[in-house]
């Protein structure tokens, strides 16, 4: 406990290129960009597969394959191939980590919408895109959001690996601390990452409350 207090009360840790604010920003940069890229890939793909039923097997197989990739191993391999210098080597494994939960949840969410509802939507005269956008997505939103949240938390926690290849982020406190036997730094870094994951979790909870219709979440009680 003392170590944690030492870490957070040491003024040196709050400024400079290896202070908490800088490291936090770096960490957010890796995580944010990775998550955004993963969403750009996985959301449209998941929606399309769920809606058309085409390529479902491909999606499941590649998602499972991506899940099996060791993030750190992949990172080291990419650094060996490309060298460091940009943040790209960090982004690739993080995107690979974030795509599967988003893809699978989006696809499953859309596919599992009550077939009668889908039928009624077509029966009313909605076109394919309208059925997807106006009925399937709003109904599947809790599952889609769940996929995003899982992906975000994984990315935020795993972005610490950037430190192993000399890039920044909160992982530096952990890795450097281990290397120099500076345990307050290691533990402090771990606490920061855990806090960040918690904030992401809460943030998604809030966004979800705002985005998901009360009719779907059934949060309301009868007036």
């Amino acid at each position: 406990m003392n170590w944690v207090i030492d870490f957070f009360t040491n003024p040196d840790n709050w400024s400079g290129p290896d202070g908490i604010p800088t490291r936090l920003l770096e960490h957010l940069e890796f995580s944010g960009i990775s998550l955004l890229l993963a969403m750009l890939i996985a959301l449209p793909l998941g929606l399309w597969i769920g809606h058309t039923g085409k390529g479902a097997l491909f999606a499941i197989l590649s998602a499972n394959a991506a899940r099996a990739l060791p993030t750190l191993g992949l990172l080291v391999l990419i650094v060996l191939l490309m060298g460091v210098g940009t943040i790209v080597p960090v982004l690739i494994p993080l995107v690979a980590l974030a795509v599967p939960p988003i893809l699978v949840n989006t696809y499953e969410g859309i596919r599992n919408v009550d077939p009668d509802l889908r039928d009624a939507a077509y029966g009313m005269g909605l076109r394919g895109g309208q059925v997807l956008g106006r009925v399937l997505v709003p109904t599947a939103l809790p599952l889609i959001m769940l996929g995003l949240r899982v992906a975000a938390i994984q990315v935020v926690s795993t972005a610490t690996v950037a430190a192993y290849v000399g890039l920044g982020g909160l992982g530096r406190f952990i890795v450097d601390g281990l290397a120099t036997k500076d345990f307050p730094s290691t533990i402090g870094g771990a606490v920061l990452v855990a806090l960040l994951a918690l904030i992401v979790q809460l943030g998604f909870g809030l966004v979800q409350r705002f985005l998901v219709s009360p009719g779907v979440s059934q949060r309301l009680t009868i007036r």
Partner: protein
Amino acid sequence: MITFNGVTKRYADGTVAVDNLSLEVPTGEITVFVGPSGCGKTTSLRMINRMIDATGGQILLDGVDVKTIDPPTLRRGIGYVIQQAGLFPHRKIVDNVATVPYLLGWDKKKARARAMELLERVGLDLKMADRYPFQLSGGQQQRVGVARALAADPPVLLMDEPFSAVDPIVRASLQEELLRLQSELNKTIVFVTHDIDEAVKLGDRVAVLRVGGKLAQLADPATLLTRPADDFVREFLGRDRGIRRLSFVSGDGLRLRTDLTVPASAEVSSLRGTTEPWLVVVDEDNCPLGWIASKDLPESGTPADVELAPYGTFVKGRDSLRAALDATLLSPSGSAIAVDESGRVVGVAVREALDEELALVAGGVGGVDG
């Protein structure tokens, strides 16, 4: 008018769900497709709005082959109600009802006003408008489903077992509601059910299908009950066809006697000489209170002092012969009391009058009836 011209549906796996079906669904009437499970009712219905495409023959909507119309456009002009209502869970009831008007590009205010009007029409409390579907009972959801189908005022309504998921009491009230609506709106309705009683109750015409999607008989309910085309139809119609048919004969033909009522305040002594075995006692508004047997008349006082026997009534000008017959069975007098819409006695149909009328009905059937 909807015309089926030798329509066939063969599914990809080779199942022939509908086989060379030809029939006409007249404008402004309810045509019911009825038959055992798997006989192709749903398939036939869904070929009209192209939720399923026929593999042979033609379906004409007022003379236009539906195949030539872009499906979403076609469907916006045809109301569609399904068994599970299929309401959009994320939208409030009012917006669910306004679905098609929104699609047609109505402005939001007009669409919502129309939706409110329809909610009222189908007998829903307007408080429901701002609720979500999960906050409604099954019967209420079904009413919303009907309102949604009617929102853009389509001339044609397709209904696939819309009332079969609700309990019998709610179902009966939904059926009444549909008949009432139809008497105001005169839509061309195709109604699918596997329940022959529902078919006979709702249909202006009933098409009985047999498995394999073949038309077994198309007739109005009374004809169907009197003259089933073959053993299959006869069996499908089930028991009590004779009695059930009386539902389609008006009770107005009954000869009524008007000399059998006595006011509750009359002196019994004045009734002493009557040769009638039973008399109807009425209150000051001429509404029935019960029967009194002349042999049980007390020495003095008024009929109100005596315990009266139970009675049955039917509404003249509205109720069927079946209702009148039912009313006779509710009273030891064996007669039915005819009342007007507000419950005032207009006469009494005695046993003989019923016998005459029933004989007439049975005679009118003619021919050989299995």
